[in-house]
């Protein structure tokens, strides 16, 4: 058993000899436990020609091992009163089980088993190829998704954030069983993973089981570092998607910073000023925010929002919306630009900042009421560099000043730094 330390909020953080990082947080308010494993691999680790491979490997992790045959992983969790899922982002791939507290062992057995022993069977690869293409086709049906894909492809010329996590369809048609297996073996070693368990656990017992189950797994090769840097954008980029549809959509992305950059908190605050604090708390706070007032209340749009996802590499602030019937994309863009200019030229009032701070604090309090959300926060923060940011997140965000907001607005919200997309609906051919 490696050295460990308990720090902020009772998290126990230690590493096994094979490099697996473990974060444990006992919470005894409900007889529930949430077990997560995070791998540091996602869209950003993919090469042209095999985009979407991380997400596809995630699908294959439900196809079984010699011990857990195909179909048995989900069923076994369900029959123990649990739920599970997995998801892939640009920066990571995560799997979780939420279980009655006395069934945690099942989650540990599944995750340790598929970390080392997943079968990537050629026949299953063939059948999953059409499932994944079907998932992509479902996304393509959504005009906002199609516009998003075009905008990020225009924005990133070299960095892999320029493709959606699901990958290009052409690549999905070509990826082979060997590609998937190699990707799995390259990135699914314990040294590239973080195990996070939050809930009704007895720490000593759980540590013993983690040692027994994960300890024997070989560390494996070190994944190749991702070194691609996006060159600085020199001028505005614009895309227009014209296809049959019934509404017009707007999507502008301004390239901002990585999640660990000193500008990240001011950018998150800027996002909250534009469309309300959004920390997964389940209370919408956008209708008193700036974009709703400027675009929806004025009847130019039916929705308007800002979104910044802190990431390992520089990520954009997305500004999106749906144009109200009878109005135009040009009206939307002009009204949006006026709001962004206001952020650059007028300092935010202390009262408005105070409102957003309160929203942040409350949303955070709501979001950590479930053990699974706490585990997700810890894992997410660790993927971005350090889980301890979970403990200081609200304070760091609350410390952002009006001057800092104005500074990042001026720095990032420049025309030369943006990629703008219009979705123009045309009548379907009859």
């Amino acid at each position, binding site marked *: 058993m490696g050295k460990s330390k308990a720090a902020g909020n009772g998290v126990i953080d230690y590493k096994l000899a094979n490099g697996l990082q473990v974060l444990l947080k006992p919470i005894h*308010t*409900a007889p*529930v436990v949430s077990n997560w494993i995070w791998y540091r691999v996602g869209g950003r680790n993919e090469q042209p020609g095999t985009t979407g491979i991380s997400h596809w490997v995630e699908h294959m992790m*439900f196809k079984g091992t010699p011990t857990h045959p*195909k*179909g048995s992983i*989900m*069923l076994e969790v*369900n*029959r*123990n*009163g*649990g*739920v599970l899922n997995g998801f892939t982002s640009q920066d990571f791939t995560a799997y979780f089980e939420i*279980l*009655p*507290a006395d*069934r945690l062992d099942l989650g540990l057995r599944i995750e340790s088993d598929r970390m080392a022993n997943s079968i990537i069977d050629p026949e299953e690869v*063939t*059948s*999953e190829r*059409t*499932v*994944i293409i*079907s*998932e992509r*086709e*479902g996304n*393509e*049906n959504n005009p906002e998704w199609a516009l998003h894909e075009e905008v990020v492809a225009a924005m990133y010329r070299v960095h892999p954030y320029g493709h959606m996590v699901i990958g290009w369809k052409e690549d999905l048609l070509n990826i082979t069983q060997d590609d998937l297996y190699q990707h799995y073996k390259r990135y699914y070693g314990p040294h590239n993973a973080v195990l996070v368990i939050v809930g009704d656990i007895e720490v000593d017992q759980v540590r013993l089981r983690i040692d027994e189950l994960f300890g024997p797994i070989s560390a494996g090769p070190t994944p190749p570092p991702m070194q691609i840097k996006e060159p600085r954008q020199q001028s505005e980029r614009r895309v227009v998607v014209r296809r*049959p*549809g*019934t*509404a017009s959509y707007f999507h502008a992305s301004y390239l901002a910073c990585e999640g660990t950059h000193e500008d990240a908190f001011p950018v998150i605050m800027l996002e909250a000023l534009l469309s*309300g*604090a959004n920390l997964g*708390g*389940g*209370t919408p*706070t956008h*209708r*008193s925010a700036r974009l709703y007032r400027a675009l929806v*209340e004025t*009847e130019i749009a*039916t929705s308007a929002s800002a979104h910044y996802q802190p990431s390992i590499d520089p990520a954009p602030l997305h500004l999106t919306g*749906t144009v*109200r*019937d*009878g109005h135009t994309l040009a009206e939307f863009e002009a009204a949006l630009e006026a709001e962004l200019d206001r952020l650059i030229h007028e300092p935010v009032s202390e009262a408005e900042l105070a*409102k957003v701070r*309160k*929203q*942040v*604090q409350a*949303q955070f309090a*709501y979001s950590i*009421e*479930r053990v699974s959300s706490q585990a997700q926060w810890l894992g997410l923060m660790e993927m971005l560099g350090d889980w301890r940011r979970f403990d200081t997140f609200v304070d760091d965000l609350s410390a952002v000043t009006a001057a800092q907001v104005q500074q990042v607005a001026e720095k990032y919200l420049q025309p030369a730094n943006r990629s703008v997309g219009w979705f123009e*609906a045309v009548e*379907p051919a009859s």
Partner: protein
Amino acid sequence: MNLEFARYSLSNGIMLIVRENHHAQSVMVRGYLRGGANLDPPEKIGLAAFTADVMRRGTEKRTFNEINETIEAVAASVYVNAGRHLLGFGGKSLAVDFELLVELMTDNILCPALPAKEVEKLRGQIITDLKELEDDPGGLARRYFREILYPPDHPYSRPVEGTLKSIPHLSRADLLDFYQALHPHGGIVVVVGDVTGEFVYQTLEATLGQWAPTHPPPDTAVPLPAPLSEPIRSLHKMDNKSQTDLVLGHIGPQRVADDFYAAYVGNTILGQLGLGGRIGHSVRDNQGLAYYAGASMLSGLGPGPWFVYAGVNPAAVDQAIELILTEIRRFNQELVTDQELADAKAYLTGILPLQMESNEGIAATLMEMQIYQLGDDFITRYPDLIYAVTKEDIQAAARTYLSDTVYALSIAGPYQGTASDES
């Protein structure tokens, strides 16, 4: 497992249920009044939903903007919405802001201004939303499924949110009429969170409890719809799309039906367990035809639909329909296996602690218990209700509701197969 709570009765007849949960900083309020979209006159589809939304958009005390500023300043939320049978209201806040939440929520119910300006603003938004729906194969497949499954004169055949035909003609006077018919009789409020029962009762009695309209409560009874007598199909072709959505199903049981639990356990086997039950196993896992495929049963105060759904590649639509019908046939003809039955029961009972972890989950369960009058000891009895279901019960329920020959099938998206009926 036990779920303790306190029950109060407000002086206007609204029943109040309070569950204290001092582990959380938040408090959750969910309320229902009788009267939803089922009360929409046939030529005024969408009236309940439109009215509910406008009730949140300005009261005699605060404008829409003032409500937003006030509630969002403390990161709380209030809502009013309409379902088929019920009008929902409530919100969420930090426990320290509970009184403010109740004040705003009560104003929405007692003194909405239904401002003409907000009516028009919202009308444009609903019309845009409905136009967006016209471009959404999944949404359209579900909409047309209901339309063909229920008789045309039955309220269940109509969309709660209205149509592009109806919404432009709803007037403020229509909204006012709908609002003025609402009544506390039969109303229920559930509160869960870091508050005490007595405090909640005093706060709500002084506010919502004072609502005492003099008109009689609305008649919310809905006739039982006649089941399908022959298969019916809707095909909505959208050649510009990449994927086709299918919904195939029947009218299912009411929540209070004797065979509800048999159907509920059965549906878990048919379309939920693991990756979408037998349907997911066949359509997704074995054949790779879909990313999502499963079955749902929407049992409520009336007989909601029991249906199978899938999103598939346009070239595989007919094949997917055949697979789905094969699974329904098998489900009707053969008993489920011992293992399937044991798995479904273990899942449906084992998952209770997860459902009860959050204020939202507890509130939803308490509300279900009150709406359907399941009894105060429902949670204690629930495992027995599930474990009492036999293989034969499931087959009987399947044969009562499901059929592989008489069903409603809705297809929306690109289509190259053999169906020819246009919606």
